[in-house]
């Protein structure tokens, strides 16, 4: 019996860790809560860039999907530190930025999925989302 209690305690601990990782708003009913019943079709993808150490414009590529098997959506050179795209949700986006550092070329790659979350509030489906996702394309120190 003592053993079973200890094992149960351990399993509950693991379950707590697991459930704490997911955001759940199920089974609530708050009529005062603002509920967006329309899911957004498009949200922003923000690219954050470093200054190129060589002072040249940075070559940026923006893909729908992954870099190696996705679709190249845009390709440009820039001196800006941020760039924005308004893109459809529920897609993965990948961006690359090419820097020149002391004779070496460093290609910074980052990717994320643009999504919204839904939950039930008093039998209504509500949507929640971040205004943008940020792809950090800055050079690591």
């Amino acid at each position, binding site marked *: 019996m003592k053993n079973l209690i*200890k094992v149960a305690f*351990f399993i509950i601990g693991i379950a*707590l*860790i697991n459930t704490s990782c997911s955001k759940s708003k199920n089974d609530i009913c708050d009529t005062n809560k603002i509920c967006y019943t329309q899911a957004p079709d498009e949200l922003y993808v923000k690219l954050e860039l470093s200054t190129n150490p060589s002072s040249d414009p940075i070559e940026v590529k923006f893909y729908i999907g*992954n870099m190696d098997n996705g679709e190249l959506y845009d390709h440009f050179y820039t001196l800006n530190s941020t760039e924005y795209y308004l893109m459809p949700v529920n897609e993965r986006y*990948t*961006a690359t930025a090419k820097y020149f550092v002391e004779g*070496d070329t460093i*290609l910074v*790659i980052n990717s994320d999925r643009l999504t919204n979350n839904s939950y039930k509030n008093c039998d209504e489906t509500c949507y929640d989302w971040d205004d943008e996702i940020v792809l950090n394309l800055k050079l690591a120190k």
Partner: protein
Amino acid sequence: MQLKKNHRLFLSLLFICFFSISPLRTLSQPIGTNPFAVSYFQPKFGLNVGAFFNHQDFLFDFGLGLEELGYDFSVTFNGSFRPYYKTVHFKESDHLFWQVEEKVVQFSIDLEKRFFFLEFANRSKLGLYGILKAGYFFGTYKGLSKNRNQEFGLTPGGGIAWQFSKMSRLSFGYLYFNQNPYAHPHTFNLKLSLYINKDEQQ
């Protein structure tokens, strides 16, 4: 923020498990024992949870499998993973590097043998252990569809094992995690093992 919260929760649970399982009576008079002596075959089902880490990396490690208490060895199937993305650099060719965000995973069969040299009145034991993880390692990368740095490898280690009663054990030691290409291979290994043992009261 969520990651930090999860880390804090995990550490809290680990400490609660530790202090609820570890009895103070362990501090009773110890008796020296032959570390190579074995008893009769006592196979049990066990679970383990732990981590290996150094100043450059941190991986959780979960496992389940056979805990043999008579011969003091265990054979478990383990899964280890880095719970966050780490920025790393690939050398793709001369003068071309890729800076990417990496997570790593390893699935392994863990073989562990323990050599207890001190036994306490309540049958708690203190000793050394040696471990060998035979596993498959790989890295996943943001923006790349394919995994990289896939490798079958051996990860040896060893350290101190403290078996409280006959159903739990805490191990702390060293692990040579050389499969991980973008972090220092020398890591600390902390592990809590629990096993179902109906013979505890005997």
